């Protein structure tokens, strides 16, 4: 039996970054808001205190803060001719769980996308002609421009206290910042973090080669900071337990350290934790959401009616809920028709490992987002006409951690066990260095999500099925970027390097990034997008869908900055336009 609860103004599915941003905006506007979160309540002093947060086994290896596949997972296959099998143990990406979502355990690399990224298809075809795009590539423009989104990037950075150096202030290039970034209205709220030895050497080498290295924009704070909501964060202590971990120092931007202390005190807000939303309920017309149905941890079912439904779960689960709820037409790769599940994309990362004599990098002196980067090979910052691929990424020396199980590396050809391994591990922990590329992943006709025909979750719901592989365009890009990176690393003076470009096929077992994208993409045309430019569903106008779910393809940057900016942009539109006149914000 399902208990029907009293209606509220807005129900939020998932209390991570976007759920917290939306809840803050809507409660400030006077709405009664309920957020329903599948995972537990989490806070700094109780869940990741500095007394035991630095535990590589518990958090990095055994995945304590993440969703358990036993609770919910997906099936995966590389291509449609294969039978998809369940992801029984996380590998390639790490779906979050609990209050704060991915904002708890991210590295806090806080980037903006390039202006050309938002009008990608138009930009590339204008510059190179249609023939540069592979025929099965399905990239699209976003329906929003960088300039429209800039104020909202600014809002997210000032919420987080992002530490960085502007490279382009209102069109004027700034020394030591990223000269390739779009024009920003003001500098970062905090100066960059300090750089350890590896990034410093990398920046010297890159500069010598004529590149413009700059500090990676960081959501780990260079100094204490009080944000516009009045919440104070502390300075990062470079402990090296960022990604996969919660920060015990209140120095990593997260919903806990930037929004929740204010939000939880508002009387018109309520969070329900360990409650799993099973579906979005539609009215008879199928054009309006009545609310959501959820189960609490005892299995009791509830119906929560709401005027407004905000889907703020992690990208994969937003798509899953849309498919389960019968909202929008599921995408069919055979016909190219349908939209939900279309343009699933990812990120293409690679590395160069370098081994030195007489150097000590102290890799454990780290923060998830310190590092020196270059952006010469991102997006369309370089001429692609003769390269045989489109896309690119940033590259750099990004010193995220020195945790032994993750960081101990030995030169290629060294045995993985025995005396030779042991000697190499002891020799190179301090004196090796890994530099990385972080590249775009464009979308393709055969990369998509739908419901699996065989496997189910504990509620009997069909799991979502991911069909995805890397394409030649991305693999060529990775090879090119990795070669450019290797040239810089070589200048740092190693006696040996191992180039590790991304190679196919894509595998679900090796951690790459948690930057899964797409599946309910935004755009200007309801036949080729699930959401309009305000992230409002074309089909159900009182439903908005947040997150990287909306990305038509992925750019060569970490997505959270853009996810946060889009959430602020959508929240502003809901408060200033939608609430005054509920209904479609764009006529289809």
């Amino acid at each position, binding site marked *: 039996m399902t208990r029907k609860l009293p209606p509220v103004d807005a129900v939020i599915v998932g209390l991570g970054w976007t759920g917290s941003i939306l809840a803050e905006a809507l409660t400030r506007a006077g709405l009664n808001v309920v957020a329903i979160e599948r995972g537990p309540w989490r806070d700094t002093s109780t869940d990741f205190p500095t007394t035991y947060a630095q535990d590589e*086994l518990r958090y990095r290896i*055994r995945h304590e803060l993440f969703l358990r596949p036993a609770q919910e997972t997906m099936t995966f296959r590389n291509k449609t001719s294969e039978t998809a099998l369940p992801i029984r143990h996380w590998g390639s990406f790490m779906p979050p769980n609990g209050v704060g979502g991915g904002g708890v355990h991210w590295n806090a690399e806080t980037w903006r996308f390039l202006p050309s990224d938002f009008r990608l298809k138009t930009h590339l075809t204008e510059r190179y002609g249609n023939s540069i795009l592979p025929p099965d590539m399905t990239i699209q423009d976003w329906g929003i421009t960088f300039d429209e989104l800039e104020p909202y990037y600014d809002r997210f950075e000032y919420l987080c206290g992002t530490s960085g150096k502007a490279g382009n202030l209102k069109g004027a290039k700034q020394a030591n910042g990223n000269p390739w970034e779009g024009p920003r209205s003001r500098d970062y709220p905090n100066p960059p973090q300090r750089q350890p030895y590896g990034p410093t050497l990398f920046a010297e080498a890159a500069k010598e080669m004529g590149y413009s290295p700059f500090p990676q924009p960081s959501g780990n704070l260079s100094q204490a900071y009080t944000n516009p909501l009045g919440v104070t964060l502390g300075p990062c202590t470079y402990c090296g337990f960022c990604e996969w971990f919660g920060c015990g120092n209140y120095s990593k931007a997260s919903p806990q350290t930037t929004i929740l202390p204010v939000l939880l005190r508002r009387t018109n807000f309520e969070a329900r934790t360990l409650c799993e939303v099973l579906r979005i309920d539609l009215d008879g017309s199928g054009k309006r959401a009545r609310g959501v149905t959820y189960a609490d941890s005892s299995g009791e079912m509830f119906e929560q009616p709401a005027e407004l439904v905000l889907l703020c779960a992690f990208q994969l689960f937003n798509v899953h809920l849309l498919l389960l709820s019968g909202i929008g037409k599921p995408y069919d790769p055979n016909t190219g028709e349908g939209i939900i599940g279309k343009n699933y994309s990812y990120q293409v990362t690679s590395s160069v490992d370098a081994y030195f004599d007489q150097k000590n990098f102290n890799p454990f002196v780290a923060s998830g987002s310190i590092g020196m980067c270059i952006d010469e090979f991102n997006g369309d910052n370089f001429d692609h006409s003769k390269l045989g691929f489109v896309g690119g990424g940033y590259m750099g020396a990004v010193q995220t951690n020195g945790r032994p199980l993750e960081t101990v590396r030995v030169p290629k050809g060294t045995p993985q066990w*025995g005396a030779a391994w042991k000697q190499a591990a002891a020799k190179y922990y301090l004196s090796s260095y890994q530099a990385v590329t972080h590249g775009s992943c464009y979308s393709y006709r055969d990369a998509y999500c739908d419901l699996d025909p065989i496997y189910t979750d504990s509620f009997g719901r069909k799991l979502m099925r991911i069909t995805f592989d890397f394409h030649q365009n991305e693999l060529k890009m990775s090879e090119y970027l990795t070669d450019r990176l290797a040239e810089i690393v070589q200048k740092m003076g190693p006696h040996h390097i191992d180039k590790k470009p991304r190679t196919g096929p894509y595998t679900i077992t090796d951690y790459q990034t948690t930057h899964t994208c797409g599946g309910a993409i935004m755009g200007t045309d309801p036949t080729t997008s699930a959401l309009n430019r305000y992230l409002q569903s074309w089909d159900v106008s009182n439903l908005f869908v947040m997150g990287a779910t909306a990305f038509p393809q992925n750019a060569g940057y970490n997505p959270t900055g853009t996810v946060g900016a889009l959430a602020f942009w959508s929240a502003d539109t809901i408060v200033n336009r939608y609430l005054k006149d509920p209904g479609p914000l764009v006529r289809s």
Partner: protein
Amino acid sequence: MATHRRSVLAGSLASFLLSLVPARARTIAGKLPWHPSAGIPPAQTRPGGWEFFTAEEGATVEALVDRLIPPDPKFAGGKDAGCAVFIDRQLAGPYGSAQRLYMRGPFQDGTPQQGMQSSKTPAEQYRAALAALDKHCRATQSGKAFAALADEDKDKIIGALEDGSLELEGVRTPQFFDQLLQNTKEGFFADPIYGGNRDMVGWKMIGFPGARYDYRDWVERHNEPYPLPPVGIQGRPEWTPGG
């Protein structure tokens, strides 16, 4: 003193039991739901005999981990570092029973890209693989168990597990090797609270200072050795005399 000791024990038992109670759905409104000591610190591995392995299995695993990470004049090998104890305690706990994993059927083999598809838990996989390894050794090595072999012969067998050339009945050998090697390295490098990395040998070997939380004074000390010794979640042995 006796009373004090009892209350400490009662407290730790209570927190142990608390950690076994499944978390319940709750509504949070009006304020941050903060309670002192609401977190769940890691439980220290109990000393003593095997919790999962039989004596024979334990001896085999000690022999395996001591070849995967052999002792040398400066640093202990896998056995003395406690890697077998670590693996034993992991297999006796939620890791061994695949508590987090999706274990619904149907089970079928897929491509390597699709990852682990076994219906067996890690504990079951170890049990089966160790039994098959023992059977293989006794059949081909003049009745000897793995632990009784010369180092050279042990290494040959481990190498054959690694490259898959040794087929053990009912065991996917390269996958089992990968799991064993990963768990062994976990035992060598994880915090000592879990029973391995004894005396922080893994951390001392590479120069990792452990569970420290503040390197602000060392960020810009480029190319200089970090001066402080490693510390674990429970501190350092000399901070707790007799403990």
